[in-house]
């Protein structure tokens, strides 16, 4: 079957690939572009570890038909760091022991970034809500919530 050409912006860079019909964005990112930061967990929308930002909005790449991102921007964990420097969220996750096996971490960071981009000083309840589509099987949610609150602007998060 013929492949379809697809162009979009991936972490600030233009990419052009060919996809099979029905390919999801997660497969396109990992297998065709080589960005391994979005993880495959369930392929059903249930775990959130494949989360990416599409035009700045949080989406599940495993449930996104790759062709639908034509001409749009896709941001993954690989794109959130500032050159060699860690993003404040990445630093806060390290400082607050918010990762153990790390499997959920890319999705958690992307979901947290989607929140902080929109609301730099979220309440605890807003952080809980923002990561409610992401499952962590090891660290547990408390250190993750604390890390997001710590990273929120100047660490002055509301209670």
């Amino acid at each position: 079957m013929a492949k379809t050409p697809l162009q979009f912006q991936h972490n600030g860079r233009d990419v052009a690939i060919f996809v099979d019909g029905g390919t999801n964005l997660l497969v396109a990112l990992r297998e065709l572009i080589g960005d391994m930061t979005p993880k495959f967990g369930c392929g059903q929308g249930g775990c959130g570890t494949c989360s990416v930002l599409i035009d700045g909005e949080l989406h599940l790449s495993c449930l996104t038909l790759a062709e639908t991102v034509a001409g749009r921007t896709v941001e993954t964990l690989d794109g959130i760091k500032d050159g060699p420097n860690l993003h404040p969220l990445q630093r806060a996750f390290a400082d607050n022991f918010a990762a153990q096996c790390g499997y959920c971490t890319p999705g958690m960071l992307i979901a947290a970034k989607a929140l902080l981009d929109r609301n730099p000083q979220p309440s605890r309840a807003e952080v809980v809500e923002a990561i409610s589509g992401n499952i962590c099987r090891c660290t547990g949610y408390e250190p993750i919530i604390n890390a997001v609150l710590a990273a929120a602007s100047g660490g002055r998060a509301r209670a």
Partner: protein
Amino acid sequence: MPVTVKTFTSTNEAAAALSSDRSARYLGGGTLVMRALNEGDISISTVIRASDQAMTRIVTSGARIVLGAGVTFARILAERDLAFLHAPARSIGGPAVRNMGTVGGNLFAPVPYGDFTVAMLALDAVVSVQGGLGGREIGIEEFLQSRDRQTGVLVLAISFAKPGSADAFRYRKIARIKPKGGAVITLAAHLPVNGSRIVGARVALGSMAPTPIRARAAERALEGRPLDTSTINAAAAAAVEGTSPGDNALASAWYRREIVGVHLRRLLSGQE
């Protein structure tokens, strides 16, 4: 197996393509279609999309509200004029699912999903569909009753009269896992009042049958009466009548039958 993706700028062409191919599926937000493809569902060999702007329009200016089938729950949450629909929209999935899932897709979502549709049913919504031969409007109840036969039609929009007062529309989703669990049951009620009496009561239930259904016996108990304790008790006692819930991992059919009246009483009496 790869599928063929067909994108149309016109809804007419998308509808024609959808109605002429039994293995074609329309792609709304994709939260259910892509899951099926990821799981290797071989009944889908064509995916149809429509990029027509009409699919994503929201009209709130008149007495009737129109939501394009492609409107996402996140869009509804961003509309101040749709504040009465924020509770149903917010009750669906996590933030990513709300950014992707659409009101059109929700009409087809199997139990335990279809939470937004329960709200639409309580608001007596009308579904605008486009088939191979033209467009028509169907009452949402009739649409849901014949849902299995609607697979070849394209839903364009859903519309309904704006509730007269903020208190007239009520919604509640009962879930064990918060903030994101699937529904044990979902309830919505529209109770317009004339003087002190309810006129045109609508009560809709999710996860109490294979599709969202009206609780007609409860509606009869409310109709023409003031919303006082005895009316609420009568409606709560009648809530289970005509339901046929199933067992799933979230709750048993028995449990659903036991609690539906309890939650309808709480919804009607405004208890948390």
